[in-house]
């Protein structure tokens, strides 16, 4: 068990280092950091001094080391676009994205899990077919299209919900939350649904597929042959076995949520990290891009690690050491 955790930790660190390398190369070699920071009439001598001050003349390995050290502190330099420390900008935007993402994941699970179980158990019913048809649309349409569609229906035509921004936010320390105001909550609804839709349909289809697969197994057949009532067979046995792979995929989907948040935030002009990175790419704001890359990579690595540990905790077959000590004799 410890060996397993250690191995995963080492892998995670390796991945972070690799990503760090990419971010560093981005920083250092794409465009010229100095030229991006100074005006046109700065003299060559001043530029040379700036180069030295920034450590741009040191050997590459040393620069990488410095980069990593600063990254660990959260220092990614100054944004080209806003001329403010990247760290500040990210801190401002992070709460917006996190609130949106968590709301979306909660929605996706709350909708996807029950619908998946239902369509798995009642495979050929009318409602099931309806869900499956709607889910196909949910998976096929690009996120921005569903977002725009929702805006058209609920903002433009019906005028019930706002179409952009976060509404009023309340500051709690360095965190800003939109959950404590009515306008904040109203502003959260459409973006959260947009972001959740893709995940919800994915989860629903996955749970359904797993459920159908599990219901065909021998142990379910044997459970029914033993006369166990449907309630126990479906929700005691089948559901538990279904959830094991679902946990993994859901955890990995968390990562996809962060990716699709980029599009959703742009559609709704939600002031989060996603919107930030789109503007940064458009502007070629390298420090922001590098910081975003590292941050997102970190999230993914952590999520993967947690999912692996969860899987280990839930499936007893993975705890091999115990079984080696027992189980002999006919």
């Amino acid at each position, binding site marked *: 068990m410890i060996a397993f955790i250690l191995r995963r930790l080492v892998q995670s660190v390796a*991945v972070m280092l*690799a990503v760090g390398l990419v971010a560093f190369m*981005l920083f250092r070699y*794409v*465009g010229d950091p100095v030229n991006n920071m100074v005006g046109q009439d700065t003299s060559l001598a001043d530029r040379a001094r700036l180069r030295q001050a920034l450590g741009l003349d040191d050997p590459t390995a040393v620069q990488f080391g410095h980069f990593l050290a600063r990254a660990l502190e959260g220092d990614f330099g100054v944004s080209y676009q806003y001329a403010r420390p990247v760290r500040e900008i990210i801190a401002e935007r992070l709460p917006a994205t996190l609130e949106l993402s968590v709301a979306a994941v909660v929605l996706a699970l709350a909708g996807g899990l029950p619908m998946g179980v239902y369509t798995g158990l009642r495979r050929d019913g009318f409602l099931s077919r309806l869900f499956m048809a709607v889910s*196909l*649309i949910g*998976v*096929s*349409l*690009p*996120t*921005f*299209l569903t977002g*725009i*569609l929702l*805006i*058209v229906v609920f903002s*433009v035509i019906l005028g019930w919900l706002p*179409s952009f921004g976060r509404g009023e936010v309340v500051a709690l320390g360095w965190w800003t939350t939109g959950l404590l105001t009515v306008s904040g909550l109203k502003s959260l609804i459409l973006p959260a649904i947009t972001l959740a839709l893709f995940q919800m349909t994915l989860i629903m289809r996955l749970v359904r597929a797993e459920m159908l697969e599990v219901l065909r197994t021998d142990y379910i057949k044997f459970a029914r042959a033993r006369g166990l009532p449907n309630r126990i067979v479906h929700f005691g046995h089948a559901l538990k076995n279904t959830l094991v792979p679902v946990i993994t995929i859901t955890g*990995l989907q968390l*990562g*996809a949520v962060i*990716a*699709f948040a*980029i*599009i959703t935030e*742009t*559609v709704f002009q939600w002031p989060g990290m996603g919107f930030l*990175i*789109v503007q*940064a*790419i*458009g502007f*070629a704001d*390298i420090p922001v*891009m590098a910081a975003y*890359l590292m941050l*997102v*990579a970190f999230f*993914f690595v952590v999520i*993967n690690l947690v999912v692996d540990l969860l899987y280990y905790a839930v499936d007893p077959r993975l705890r091999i050491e115990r079984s080696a000590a027992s189980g002999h004799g006919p």
Partner: protein
Amino acid sequence: MAPDEAAPGALRRLADSDLFWSFRRSPVTVVAAVVTVLLLLGAALAPVLAPHDPYDLASLDLLQARDPPAWEAGGDWSFPLGTDDQGRDVLSSILYGLRLSLLVGVSAVLLALALGVGLGLLAGYAGGWIDTLIMRIADVQLSFPAILVALLVDGVARSLLPHDRQDQTAVYVVVLAIASSIWVQFARTVRGSTLVERAKEYVQAARIIGVHPAAIAWRHVLPNAMGPVLVIATINLAIAILTEASLSFLGLGLPVTQPSLGTLIRIGDNYIFSGEWRWMLLYPAIALASLTLAVNLLGDWLRDAFNPKLR
């Protein structure tokens, strides 16, 4: 045995095959196929079908900008679906945009295929550290969603290219970005097939004789891997089209001067609170939705048809 009994022709075999049977059985799939063919025709024949050339900047007249469709007041049958903010005919833009979306999607998949299959063959055949390196990169990349990778490549490419050339090079940048986000599945599948084939005796025999590894790879390994590769290609086509649309919508894909459906939607989105969204946004949106839905349905059917577990 009658000597003149020829083996049934390929078309006949296709018609009798399980694949076609499952196709005919599902009305949804048939509809999807019909829609796809119609859209493909529209895209291919765009130069013929479109009443105007939306790329001809000289022909645009700002006085005709933001005109409604022909059947409404203020409309004109020479612009059947209305005009956008630059005076471009919406119908023509949609046809050409469809064309671009498909072109970019297919190119990206082909590039990813070439790249992925090549790297997969290399990894599977060479083994050793090359294999480990390629597969590690693949594993790491797989843990990130495709769109993030596409965004990253797109962003880097833009930063590297001079500003004034960005519009012209946009198509290549987008194709490269999308291809670099989807090559991994091809590589993995082909590597798997390569490993399987490499262990077989006829390959070992060929190596002993001295046949060049590239020849072995091309003539023996590749044909065996093509089946699953084709399925992956179809699935990834839908992903490629979606990714391109998303990139263009974000303003990081195809530019306004060469708009794809995603770009058109982005433009239309600006007019969402004035009445003009009804044609500037809605029609490109319907076109894109039909395309992605149809391709997805076909991909779904193809995947089910090839899945031995569901037989």
